[in-house]
Protein backbone atom coordinates (compact mmCIF):
# COMPACT_ATOMS: atom_id res chain seq x y z
CA UNK A 1 0.00 0.00 0.00
CA UNK A 2 2.83 2.35 0.88
CA UNK A 3 4.53 1.56 -2.41
CA UNK A 4 1.28 2.25 -4.27
CA UNK A 5 0.77 5.51 -2.39
CA UNK A 6 4.31 6.56 -3.22
CA UNK A 7 3.79 5.72 -6.87
CA UNK A 8 0.51 7.66 -6.97
CA UNK A 9 2.23 10.56 -5.26
CA UNK A 10 5.04 10.61 -7.80
CA UNK A 11 2.65 10.49 -10.74
CA UNK A 12 0.46 13.18 -9.20
CA UNK A 13 3.53 15.35 -8.75
CA UNK A 14 4.58 14.80 -12.34
CA UNK A 15 1.08 15.55 -13.56
CA UNK A 16 0.74 18.73 -11.53
CA UNK A 17 4.21 19.85 -12.54
CA UNK A 18 3.51 19.15 -16.19
CA UNK A 19 0.18 20.96 -16.11
CA UNK A 20 1.72 23.97 -14.38
CA UNK A 21 4.53 24.16 -16.88
CA UNK A 22 2.16 23.83 -19.81
CA UNK A 23 -0.19 26.49 -18.36
CA UNK A 24 2.71 28.86 -17.96
CA UNK A 25 3.92 28.07 -21.49
CA UNK A 26 0.47 28.69 -23.00
CA UNK A 27 0.09 31.91 -21.07
CA UNK A 28 3.52 33.10 -22.22
CA UNK A 29 2.94 32.09 -25.83
CA UNK A 30 -0.55 33.57 -26.19
CA UNK A 31 -0.72 36.06 -29.05
CA UNK A 32 -0.13 39.46 -27.63
CA UNK A 33 -3.06 41.75 -28.21
CA UNK A 34 -0.76 44.63 -27.51
CA UNK A 35 -0.67 46.75 -24.45
CA UNK A 36 -3.47 49.14 -23.92
CA UNK A 37 -2.41 52.43 -25.45
CA UNK A 38 -3.01 54.28 -22.19
CA UNK A 39 -0.64 51.95 -20.34
CA UNK A 40 1.97 52.36 -23.01
CA UNK A 41 2.11 56.16 -22.79
CA UNK A 42 5.37 57.02 -21.11
CA UNK A 43 5.71 59.67 -18.46
CA UNK A 44 8.65 61.89 -19.18
CA UNK A 45 11.77 61.47 -17.07
CA UNK A 46 14.32 64.30 -17.44
CA UNK A 47 17.33 61.96 -17.28
CA UNK A 48 15.98 59.67 -20.00
CA UNK A 49 14.91 62.59 -22.15
CA UNK A 50 18.37 64.06 -21.80
CA UNK A 51 19.84 60.79 -23.09
CA UNK A 52 17.53 60.97 -26.09
CA UNK A 53 18.48 64.60 -26.75
CA UNK A 54 22.15 63.76 -26.35
CA UNK A 55 21.83 60.99 -28.91
CA UNK A 56 20.28 63.41 -31.40
CA UNK A 57 22.88 66.10 -30.63
CA UNK A 58 25.73 63.61 -31.11
CA UNK A 59 24.45 62.79 -34.57
CA UNK A 60 23.98 66.48 -35.43
CA UNK A 61 27.33 67.67 -34.11
CA UNK A 62 29.48 64.99 -35.77
CA UNK A 63 31.51 65.85 -38.84
CA UNK A 64 31.08 62.36 -40.21
CA UNK A 65 29.32 59.18 -39.24
CA UNK A 66 29.24 55.71 -40.72
CA UNK A 67 27.47 52.59 -39.55
CA UNK A 68 25.90 49.39 -40.65
CA UNK A 69 22.29 48.89 -39.74
CA UNK A 70 20.17 45.78 -40.02
CA UNK A 71 16.43 46.16 -39.93
CA UNK A 72 14.11 43.23 -39.36
CA UNK A 73 10.50 42.60 -38.47
CA UNK A 74 8.41 39.46 -37.99
CA UNK A 75 7.31 37.86 -41.23
CA UNK A 76 9.65 39.95 -43.38
CA UNK A 77 13.20 39.39 -44.45
CA UNK A 78 15.96 41.40 -42.84
CA UNK A 79 17.44 44.29 -44.74
CA UNK A 80 20.93 45.67 -44.23
CA UNK A 81 21.98 49.25 -44.93
CA UNK A 82 25.53 50.57 -45.07
CA UNK A 83 25.41 54.25 -44.25
CA UNK A 84 28.04 56.98 -44.68
CA UNK A 85 27.27 60.57 -43.70
CA UNK A 86 29.47 63.64 -43.98
CA UNK A 87 28.91 67.36 -43.45
CA UNK A 88 27.63 69.53 -44.95
CA UNK A 89 25.30 67.45 -47.10
CA UNK A 90 26.98 64.26 -48.27
CA UNK A 91 25.55 60.81 -47.78
CA UNK A 92 25.60 57.32 -49.19
CA UNK A 93 23.36 54.37 -48.37
CA UNK A 94 23.81 50.92 -49.82
CA UNK A 95 21.00 48.42 -49.35
CA UNK A 96 21.79 44.72 -49.08
CA UNK A 97 19.16 42.01 -48.85
CA UNK A 98 19.16 38.88 -46.68
CA UNK A 99 21.11 36.95 -49.33
CA UNK A 100 23.93 39.47 -49.37
CA UNK A 101 23.00 40.97 -52.73
CA UNK A 102 23.03 44.71 -53.25
CA UNK A 103 19.53 45.94 -54.03
CA UNK A 104 20.14 49.63 -54.50
CA UNK A 105 22.34 52.61 -53.75
CA UNK A 106 21.53 56.15 -52.70
CA UNK A 107 24.21 58.81 -53.13
CA UNK A 108 24.03 62.45 -52.04
CA UNK A 109 26.72 64.61 -53.66
CA UNK A 110 25.94 67.76 -51.75
CA UNK A 111 23.27 69.23 -53.96
CA UNK A 112 21.43 66.24 -55.39
CA UNK A 113 20.68 62.69 -54.53
CA UNK A 114 20.95 59.81 -56.95
CA UNK A 115 19.25 56.46 -56.55
CA UNK A 116 20.15 53.54 -58.76
CA UNK A 117 19.60 49.79 -58.78
CA UNK A 118 21.69 46.88 -60.05
CA UNK A 119 18.75 45.31 -61.86
CA UNK A 120 15.18 46.32 -62.56
CA UNK A 121 13.77 49.45 -61.01
CA UNK A 122 11.70 48.10 -58.09
CA UNK A 123 9.38 51.10 -58.18
CA UNK A 124 7.86 50.03 -61.50
CA UNK A 125 4.85 47.81 -61.02
CA UNK A 126 5.91 44.28 -62.10
CA UNK A 127 2.40 43.74 -63.50
CA UNK A 128 2.50 46.90 -65.60
CA UNK A 129 2.36 45.53 -69.15
CA UNK A 130 3.03 48.98 -70.65
CA UNK A 131 6.63 48.87 -69.48
CA UNK A 132 8.69 46.23 -71.35
CA UNK A 133 11.38 44.34 -69.39
CA UNK A 134 14.27 46.13 -71.10
CA UNK A 135 12.81 49.51 -70.11
CA UNK A 136 13.07 48.59 -66.42
CA UNK A 137 16.87 48.35 -66.46
CA UNK A 138 19.60 51.01 -66.22
CA UNK A 139 17.37 53.56 -64.55
CA UNK A 140 18.17 56.14 -61.91
CA UNK A 141 16.32 58.75 -59.89
CA UNK A 142 17.57 62.23 -59.13
CA UNK A 143 16.30 64.86 -56.69
CA UNK A 144 17.53 68.12 -55.22
CA UNK A 145 18.61 67.94 -51.57
CA UNK A 146 18.33 71.23 -49.67
CA UNK A 147 20.41 70.96 -46.48
CA UNK A 148 18.37 69.90 -43.46
CA UNK A 149 15.12 69.76 -45.39
CA UNK A 150 15.19 66.38 -47.08
CA UNK A 151 14.70 62.98 -45.54
CA UNK A 152 17.16 60.21 -46.38
CA UNK A 153 14.95 57.82 -44.43
CA UNK A 154 12.06 58.29 -46.84
CA UNK A 155 14.32 57.91 -49.88
CA UNK A 156 15.69 54.67 -48.48
CA UNK A 157 12.24 53.19 -49.12
CA UNK A 158 13.23 53.25 -52.80
CA UNK A 159 16.02 50.77 -51.98
CA UNK A 160 14.30 48.31 -49.69
CA UNK A 161 11.09 47.60 -47.81
CA UNK A 162 12.15 49.10 -44.49
CA UNK A 163 12.53 52.67 -43.36
CA UNK A 164 15.20 53.22 -40.70
CA UNK A 165 13.84 54.09 -37.27
CA UNK A 166 16.24 57.01 -36.91
CA UNK A 167 16.29 59.06 -40.07
CA UNK A 168 19.95 59.38 -41.16
CA UNK A 169 19.12 62.98 -42.17
CA UNK A 170 19.14 63.80 -38.46
CA UNK A 171 22.89 64.06 -39.01
CA UNK A 172 22.35 66.90 -41.49
CA UNK A 173 19.97 68.80 -39.24
CA UNK A 174 16.67 67.33 -40.43
CA UNK A 175 13.94 67.14 -37.81
CA UNK A 176 11.66 64.13 -37.95
CA UNK A 177 7.98 65.10 -38.24
CA UNK A 178 7.23 62.97 -35.16
CA UNK A 179 9.43 64.97 -32.77
CA UNK A 180 6.74 67.48 -31.69
CA UNK A 181 4.48 64.57 -30.70
CA UNK A 182 6.73 62.82 -28.22
CA UNK A 183 4.74 62.00 -25.06
CA UNK A 184 7.83 61.37 -23.00
CA UNK A 185 10.99 59.34 -22.51
CA UNK A 186 11.64 56.97 -19.61
CA UNK A 187 14.64 54.95 -18.51
CA UNK A 188 14.49 51.17 -18.76
CA UNK A 189 17.76 50.17 -17.18
CA UNK A 190 20.97 49.12 -18.84
CA UNK A 191 22.02 46.37 -21.16
CA UNK A 192 25.10 45.13 -22.94
CA UNK A 193 25.00 45.05 -26.74
CA UNK A 194 27.99 43.74 -28.69
CA UNK A 195 30.30 44.34 -25.77
CA UNK A 196 29.11 47.92 -25.20
CA UNK A 197 27.34 49.09 -22.08
CA UNK A 198 24.10 50.80 -23.11
CA UNK A 199 21.40 52.82 -21.38
CA UNK A 200 17.94 51.71 -22.43
CA UNK A 201 15.18 54.27 -22.83
CA UNK A 202 11.58 54.03 -23.96
CA UNK A 203 9.99 56.86 -25.93
CA UNK A 204 6.29 56.99 -26.68
CA UNK A 205 4.82 59.16 -29.42
CA UNK A 206 1.28 60.39 -30.08
CA UNK A 207 -0.36 58.74 -27.07
CA UNK A 208 1.67 55.58 -27.60
CA UNK A 209 0.54 55.14 -31.16
CA UNK A 210 4.25 54.50 -31.59
CA UNK A 211 6.86 53.36 -29.09
CA UNK A 212 10.59 53.43 -29.56
CA UNK A 213 13.17 51.67 -27.46
CA UNK A 214 16.77 52.82 -27.76
CA UNK A 215 19.86 51.07 -26.48
CA UNK A 216 22.25 54.02 -26.35
CA UNK A 217 25.95 53.31 -26.00
CA UNK A 218 27.61 55.02 -23.07
CA UNK A 219 30.78 55.25 -25.13
CA UNK A 220 29.63 57.40 -28.04
CA UNK A 221 25.97 58.21 -27.17
CA UNK A 222 24.79 56.57 -30.36
CA UNK A 223 22.26 53.72 -30.55
CA UNK A 224 23.27 50.09 -30.94
CA UNK A 225 19.77 48.72 -31.07
CA UNK A 226 16.32 50.22 -31.59
CA UNK A 227 12.90 48.68 -31.43
CA UNK A 228 9.79 50.28 -32.85
CA UNK A 229 6.24 49.24 -32.03
CA UNK A 230 3.45 50.67 -34.15
CA UNK A 231 -0.05 50.33 -32.77
CA UNK A 232 -2.77 50.85 -35.32
CA UNK A 233 -5.33 48.31 -36.51
CA UNK A 234 -2.78 45.62 -35.75
CA UNK A 235 0.56 45.94 -34.09
CA UNK A 236 3.81 45.86 -35.97
CA UNK A 237 7.26 45.53 -34.49
CA UNK A 238 10.59 46.34 -36.08
CA UNK A 239 14.12 46.05 -34.76
CA UNK A 240 17.14 47.92 -36.05
CA UNK A 241 20.67 47.10 -34.99
CA UNK A 242 23.72 49.22 -35.58
CA UNK A 243 27.24 47.89 -35.87
CA UNK A 244 30.65 49.14 -37.11
CA UNK A 245 29.77 52.62 -35.88
CA UNK A 246 32.49 55.17 -36.68
CA UNK A 247 32.15 58.77 -35.52
CA UNK A 248 34.34 61.51 -36.96
CA UNK A 249 36.33 59.22 -39.25
CA UNK A 250 37.74 60.35 -42.54
CA UNK A 251 35.43 59.26 -45.33
CA UNK A 252 36.89 59.76 -48.80
CA UNK A 253 34.94 62.18 -50.94
CA UNK A 254 34.65 59.77 -53.84
CA UNK A 255 32.17 57.81 -51.73
CA UNK A 256 29.67 60.57 -52.43
CA UNK A 257 30.18 60.91 -56.13
CA UNK A 258 28.10 59.24 -58.81
CA UNK A 259 26.96 60.10 -62.25
CA UNK A 260 24.81 57.97 -64.53
CA UNK A 261 26.79 55.83 -66.99
CA UNK A 262 26.16 56.26 -70.67
CA UNK A 263 22.84 54.86 -71.78
CA UNK A 264 21.18 55.13 -68.40
CA UNK A 265 17.87 56.94 -68.21
CA UNK A 266 16.30 59.02 -65.48
CA UNK A 267 13.15 57.52 -64.04
CA UNK A 268 10.54 59.95 -62.83
CA UNK A 269 7.79 58.46 -60.66
CA UNK A 270 4.40 58.72 -62.40
CA UNK A 271 2.16 61.52 -61.23
CA UNK A 272 -0.38 59.94 -58.83
CA UNK A 273 -2.97 62.43 -60.12
CA UNK A 274 -3.15 60.49 -63.39
CA UNK A 275 -4.59 57.49 -61.56
CA UNK A 276 -7.30 59.43 -59.76
CA UNK A 277 -10.94 59.00 -60.66
CA UNK A 278 -12.39 61.73 -62.86
CA UNK A 279 -15.61 63.50 -61.86
CA UNK A 280 -18.60 61.47 -63.03
CA UNK A 281 -16.61 58.24 -63.19
CA UNK A 282 -18.14 55.28 -61.33
CA UNK A 283 -16.13 54.45 -58.24
CA UNK A 284 -14.96 50.85 -57.96
CA UNK A 285 -16.32 48.95 -55.00
CA UNK A 286 -13.82 48.20 -52.27
CA UNK A 287 -13.87 46.82 -48.75
CA UNK A 288 -11.87 47.96 -45.76
CA UNK A 289 -11.36 46.62 -42.28
CA UNK A 290 -13.10 48.78 -39.74
CA UNK A 291 -11.67 49.35 -36.25
CA UNK A 292 -14.90 48.12 -34.69
CA UNK A 293 -17.41 46.96 -37.31
CA UNK A 294 -15.64 44.16 -39.15
CA UNK A 295 -15.59 44.82 -42.87
CA UNK A 296 -17.33 47.76 -44.51
CA UNK A 297 -17.82 48.14 -48.22
CA UNK A 298 -18.32 51.27 -50.29
CA UNK A 299 -21.42 49.67 -51.80
CA UNK A 300 -22.96 49.57 -48.29
CA UNK A 301 -23.43 53.33 -48.66
CA UNK A 302 -25.01 53.32 -52.09
CA UNK A 303 -27.24 56.36 -52.74
CA UNK A 304 -25.56 58.21 -49.85
CA UNK A 305 -22.89 60.85 -49.90
CA UNK A 306 -19.59 59.35 -48.82
CA UNK A 307 -16.68 61.48 -47.67
CA UNK A 308 -13.34 59.61 -47.74
CA UNK A 309 -10.92 61.21 -45.32
CA UNK A 310 -7.49 59.66 -45.77
CA UNK A 311 -4.95 60.40 -43.08
CA UNK A 312 -1.64 58.98 -41.99
CA UNK A 313 -0.81 58.05 -38.44
CA UNK A 314 2.67 59.23 -37.56
Amino acid at each position, binding site marked *: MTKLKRRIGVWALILVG*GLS*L*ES*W*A*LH*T*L*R*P*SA*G*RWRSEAVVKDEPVAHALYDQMTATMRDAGSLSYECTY*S*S*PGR*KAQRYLVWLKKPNYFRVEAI*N*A*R*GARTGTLVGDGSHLWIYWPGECPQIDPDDKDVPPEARLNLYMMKATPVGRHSIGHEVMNLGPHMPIIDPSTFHGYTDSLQPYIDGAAG*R*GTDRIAGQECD*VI*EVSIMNAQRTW*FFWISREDHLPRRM*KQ*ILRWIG*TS*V*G*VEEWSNVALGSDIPKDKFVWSPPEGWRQWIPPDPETKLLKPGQVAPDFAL*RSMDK*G*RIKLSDYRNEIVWLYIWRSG
Partner: protein
Amino acid sequence: MRAYELIKETFLRRRSIAVIHLIWLVLYGLFWWLFLPDPEEYGRFLLLWGGFLLPLALSAGILGDDIASGRICLLVTKPFWAGELYVYRLIGLSLQGAMQFLLAALLVFVLHTVTRRSSVSGLGLWLFASWLLFNTVAALSTSVSVVIRRVHNSLLLLVTFLTGATVAQILISNLSNHPLGTVVAGFFRYPFPPFELLRHLAKGDYARESLSLGGWRIPTSIACVGHSLILTVVYAGAGILLLTRRQFSGPRD
Protein backbone atom coordinates in the same frame (compact mmCIF):
# COMPACT_ATOMS: atom_id res chain seq x y z
CA MET B 1 21.08 -4.29 -23.70
CA ARG B 2 17.39 -4.51 -24.46
CA ALA B 3 17.25 -0.74 -24.84
CA TYR B 4 20.22 -0.78 -27.21
CA GLU B 5 18.67 -3.53 -29.31
CA LEU B 6 15.29 -1.80 -29.53
CA ILE B 7 16.90 1.51 -30.44
CA LYS B 8 19.13 -0.14 -33.03
CA GLU B 9 16.06 -1.76 -34.55
CA THR B 10 14.56 1.61 -35.41
CA PHE B 11 17.58 2.19 -37.70
CA LEU B 12 17.61 -1.27 -39.23
CA ARG B 13 14.00 -2.44 -39.24
CA ARG B 14 13.55 -1.57 -42.91
CA ARG B 15 16.05 -1.20 -45.74
CA SER B 16 14.19 1.89 -46.90
CA ILE B 17 15.27 3.84 -43.79
CA ALA B 18 18.83 4.30 -45.03
CA VAL B 19 17.48 5.26 -48.45
CA ILE B 20 15.15 7.85 -46.86
CA HIS B 21 18.06 9.42 -44.97
CA LEU B 22 20.12 9.56 -48.15
CA ILE B 23 17.30 11.06 -50.22
CA TRP B 24 16.65 13.70 -47.59
CA LEU B 25 20.31 14.68 -47.46
CA VAL B 26 20.42 14.94 -51.23
CA LEU B 27 17.31 17.12 -51.14
CA TYR B 28 18.89 19.43 -48.57
CA GLY B 29 21.96 19.79 -50.73
CA LEU B 30 20.02 20.26 -53.95
CA PHE B 31 17.78 22.92 -52.44
CA TRP B 32 20.81 24.85 -51.26
CA TRP B 33 22.69 24.47 -54.52
CA LEU B 34 19.84 25.29 -56.87
CA PHE B 35 18.11 28.10 -55.01
CA LEU B 36 20.86 29.63 -52.82
CA PRO B 37 18.27 30.39 -50.19
CA ASP B 38 18.73 32.85 -47.38
CA PRO B 39 18.80 31.36 -43.87
CA GLU B 40 15.09 31.87 -43.34
CA GLU B 41 14.07 30.20 -46.59
CA TYR B 42 16.37 27.28 -45.92
CA GLY B 43 15.15 27.07 -42.35
CA ARG B 44 11.54 26.83 -43.47
CA PHE B 45 12.52 24.11 -45.91
CA LEU B 46 14.24 22.23 -43.07
CA LEU B 47 11.24 22.68 -40.78
CA LEU B 48 8.87 21.23 -43.37
CA TRP B 49 10.98 18.46 -44.87
CA GLY B 50 13.06 17.54 -41.86
CA GLY B 51 10.71 18.42 -39.04
CA PHE B 52 7.47 17.16 -40.52
CA LEU B 53 7.87 14.85 -43.53
CA LEU B 54 10.99 13.02 -42.32
CA PRO B 55 9.47 11.65 -39.08
CA LEU B 56 6.43 10.52 -41.02
CA ALA B 57 8.66 8.66 -43.46
CA LEU B 58 10.82 7.10 -40.74
CA SER B 59 7.97 6.12 -38.45
CA ALA B 60 5.84 4.42 -41.08
CA GLY B 61 4.77 1.14 -39.54
CA ILE B 62 7.14 1.53 -36.59
CA LEU B 63 4.77 -0.43 -34.37
CA GLY B 64 2.15 -1.32 -36.93
CA ASP B 65 4.52 -3.77 -38.68
CA ASP B 66 5.19 -5.69 -35.47
CA ILE B 67 1.47 -5.72 -34.66
CA ALA B 68 0.53 -6.99 -38.10
CA SER B 69 3.21 -9.69 -38.11
CA GLY B 70 2.41 -10.85 -34.57
CA ARG B 71 5.93 -10.14 -33.34
CA ILE B 72 4.46 -7.66 -30.89
CA CYS B 73 3.34 -10.56 -28.70
CA LEU B 74 6.98 -11.52 -28.14
CA LEU B 75 8.11 -7.94 -27.63
CA VAL B 76 5.53 -7.06 -24.96
CA THR B 77 5.77 -10.36 -23.09
CA LYS B 78 5.98 -9.81 -19.36
CA PRO B 79 7.98 -9.10 -17.25
CA PHE B 80 8.92 -6.39 -19.74
CA TRP B 81 6.70 -3.37 -19.64
CA ALA B 82 5.07 -2.67 -23.01
CA GLY B 83 5.70 1.03 -22.63
CA GLU B 84 9.44 0.38 -22.79
CA LEU B 85 9.05 -0.76 -26.38
CA TYR B 86 7.35 2.52 -27.22
CA VAL B 87 9.90 4.66 -25.37
CA TYR B 88 12.94 3.03 -26.94
CA ARG B 89 11.41 3.18 -30.41
CA LEU B 90 10.75 6.89 -29.92
CA ILE B 91 14.28 7.45 -28.62
CA GLY B 92 15.58 5.63 -31.68
CA LEU B 93 13.57 7.92 -33.95
CA SER B 94 14.75 10.99 -32.08
CA LEU B 95 18.37 9.89 -32.45
CA GLN B 96 17.82 9.34 -36.15
CA GLY B 97 16.45 12.86 -36.41
CA ALA B 98 19.38 14.32 -34.50
CA MET B 99 21.85 12.46 -36.68
CA GLN B 100 20.06 13.61 -39.84
CA PHE B 101 20.11 17.26 -38.78
CA LEU B 102 23.77 17.11 -37.80
CA LEU B 103 24.59 15.70 -41.22
CA ALA B 104 22.45 18.40 -42.82
CA ALA B 105 24.39 21.05 -40.90
CA LEU B 106 27.67 19.54 -42.04
CA LEU B 107 26.47 19.38 -45.63
CA VAL B 108 25.35 23.01 -45.62
CA PHE B 109 28.59 24.09 -44.00
CA VAL B 110 30.62 22.29 -46.66
CA LEU B 111 28.51 23.74 -49.48
CA HIS B 112 28.75 27.21 -48.00
CA THR B 113 32.53 26.90 -47.65
CA VAL B 114 32.92 25.62 -51.19
CA THR B 115 30.55 28.05 -52.91
CA ARG B 116 31.13 31.05 -50.61
CA ARG B 117 27.55 32.05 -51.28
CA SER B 118 24.45 32.67 -49.20
CA SER B 119 24.68 32.63 -45.43
CA VAL B 120 24.46 30.12 -42.61
CA SER B 121 23.76 32.56 -39.79
CA GLY B 122 20.93 31.46 -37.53
CA LEU B 123 20.77 28.00 -39.12
CA GLY B 124 21.53 26.36 -35.78
CA LEU B 125 18.27 27.63 -34.34
CA TRP B 126 16.34 26.35 -37.34
CA LEU B 127 17.93 22.92 -36.97
CA PHE B 128 17.05 22.86 -33.27
CA ALA B 129 13.45 23.88 -33.97
CA SER B 130 13.24 21.25 -36.71
CA TRP B 131 14.46 18.58 -34.30
CA LEU B 132 11.84 19.62 -31.72
CA LEU B 133 9.13 19.39 -34.36
CA PHE B 134 10.57 16.06 -35.52
CA ASN B 135 10.19 14.65 -32.00
CA THR B 136 6.60 15.85 -31.68
CA VAL B 137 5.52 14.49 -35.04
CA ALA B 138 7.42 11.23 -34.43
CA ALA B 139 5.61 10.74 -31.11
CA LEU B 140 2.25 11.41 -32.74
CA SER B 141 2.99 9.06 -35.61
CA THR B 142 4.28 6.32 -33.30
CA SER B 143 1.13 6.59 -31.19
CA VAL B 144 -1.07 6.37 -34.26
CA SER B 145 0.86 3.31 -35.43
CA VAL B 146 -0.31 1.48 -32.28
CA VAL B 147 -3.86 1.44 -33.63
CA ILE B 148 -3.29 1.64 -37.38
CA ARG B 149 -1.95 -1.37 -39.21
CA ARG B 150 1.29 -1.43 -41.16
CA VAL B 151 2.48 1.85 -42.68
CA HIS B 152 -0.87 3.58 -42.87
CA ASN B 153 -0.11 5.69 -39.79
CA SER B 154 2.13 8.04 -41.76
CA LEU B 155 -0.25 8.30 -44.68
CA LEU B 156 -3.18 9.00 -42.37
CA LEU B 157 -1.28 11.74 -40.56
CA LEU B 158 -0.11 13.33 -43.80
CA VAL B 159 -3.64 13.49 -45.19
CA THR B 160 -5.02 14.69 -41.85
CA PHE B 161 -2.46 17.46 -41.58
CA LEU B 162 -2.96 18.66 -45.12
CA THR B 163 -6.73 18.70 -44.68
CA GLY B 164 -6.49 20.28 -41.25
CA ALA B 165 -4.11 22.98 -42.44
CA THR B 166 -6.43 23.87 -45.32
CA VAL B 167 -9.49 23.99 -43.10
CA ALA B 168 -7.62 26.04 -40.49
CA GLN B 169 -6.45 28.52 -43.11
CA ILE B 170 -9.98 28.98 -44.45
CA LEU B 171 -11.57 29.30 -41.02
CA ILE B 172 -8.99 31.68 -39.60
CA SER B 173 -9.00 33.98 -42.62
CA ASN B 174 -12.83 34.12 -42.66
CA LEU B 175 -13.06 34.68 -38.94
CA SER B 176 -10.25 37.22 -38.69
CA ASN B 177 -12.61 39.94 -37.44
CA HIS B 178 -14.78 37.67 -35.34
CA PRO B 179 -14.08 36.93 -31.64
CA LEU B 180 -14.38 33.24 -32.50
CA GLY B 181 -11.35 33.64 -34.74
CA THR B 182 -9.03 33.76 -31.73
CA VAL B 183 -10.59 30.59 -30.35
CA VAL B 184 -10.24 28.77 -33.66
CA ALA B 185 -6.65 29.95 -34.11
CA GLY B 186 -5.85 28.76 -30.59
CA PHE B 187 -7.47 25.41 -31.28
CA PHE B 188 -5.15 24.82 -34.21
CA ARG B 189 -2.11 26.42 -32.64
CA TYR B 190 -1.74 24.65 -29.29
CA PRO B 191 -2.86 20.99 -29.27
CA PHE B 192 -1.31 20.14 -32.65
CA PRO B 193 2.39 20.00 -33.50
CA PRO B 194 3.67 23.56 -33.02
CA PHE B 195 4.72 24.58 -36.54
CA GLU B 196 3.99 28.26 -36.09
CA LEU B 197 5.50 28.58 -32.63
CA LEU B 198 8.71 26.78 -33.59
CA ARG B 199 8.97 28.87 -36.73
CA HIS B 200 8.91 32.01 -34.57
CA LEU B 201 11.50 30.46 -32.26
CA ALA B 202 13.79 29.58 -35.13
CA LYS B 203 13.48 33.02 -36.71
CA GLY B 204 14.53 34.59 -33.44
CA ASP B 205 11.24 36.48 -33.09
CA TYR B 206 10.97 35.64 -29.41
CA ALA B 207 14.43 36.91 -28.77
CA ARG B 208 13.96 40.32 -30.29
CA GLU B 209 10.53 41.27 -31.31
CA SER B 210 8.19 40.76 -28.40
CA LEU B 211 6.24 43.74 -27.24
CA SER B 212 7.68 44.07 -23.79
CA LEU B 213 11.15 44.88 -22.61
CA GLY B 214 13.21 43.34 -19.88
CA GLY B 215 13.40 39.61 -19.38
CA TRP B 216 11.69 38.97 -22.64
CA ARG B 217 14.37 37.00 -24.39
CA ILE B 218 14.51 33.76 -22.53
CA PRO B 219 11.06 33.05 -21.05
CA THR B 220 9.15 32.99 -24.33
CA SER B 221 11.77 30.81 -25.99
CA ILE B 222 11.74 28.43 -23.01
CA ALA B 223 7.93 28.38 -23.10
CA CYS B 224 8.02 27.39 -26.77
CA VAL B 225 10.56 24.63 -26.20
CA GLY B 226 8.71 23.47 -23.09
CA HIS B 227 5.37 23.38 -24.90
CA SER B 228 6.87 21.37 -27.74
CA LEU B 229 8.43 18.85 -25.35
CA ILE B 230 5.23 18.57 -23.29
CA LEU B 231 3.23 17.92 -26.46
CA THR B 232 5.73 15.19 -27.35
CA VAL B 233 5.27 13.65 -23.90
CA VAL B 234 1.48 13.88 -24.16
CA TYR B 235 1.41 12.20 -27.57
CA ALA B 236 3.84 9.56 -26.32
CA GLY B 237 1.79 9.08 -23.16
CA ALA B 238 -1.31 8.46 -25.22
CA GLY B 239 0.57 5.94 -27.34
CA ILE B 240 1.97 4.12 -24.31
CA LEU B 241 -1.48 3.97 -22.76
CA LEU B 242 -2.95 2.49 -25.93
CA LEU B 243 -0.10 -0.01 -26.24
CA THR B 244 -0.30 -1.18 -22.64
CA ARG B 245 -4.09 -1.49 -22.73
CA ARG B 246 -4.22 -3.53 -25.93
CA GLN B 247 -4.30 -7.30 -25.85
CA PHE B 248 -2.17 -8.87 -28.57
CA SER B 249 -3.03 -12.44 -29.33
CA GLY B 250 -1.34 -13.22 -32.62
CA PRO B 251 -0.80 -12.41 -36.32
CA ARG B 252 -4.46 -11.45 -36.78
CA ASP B 253 -3.76 -8.29 -34.77
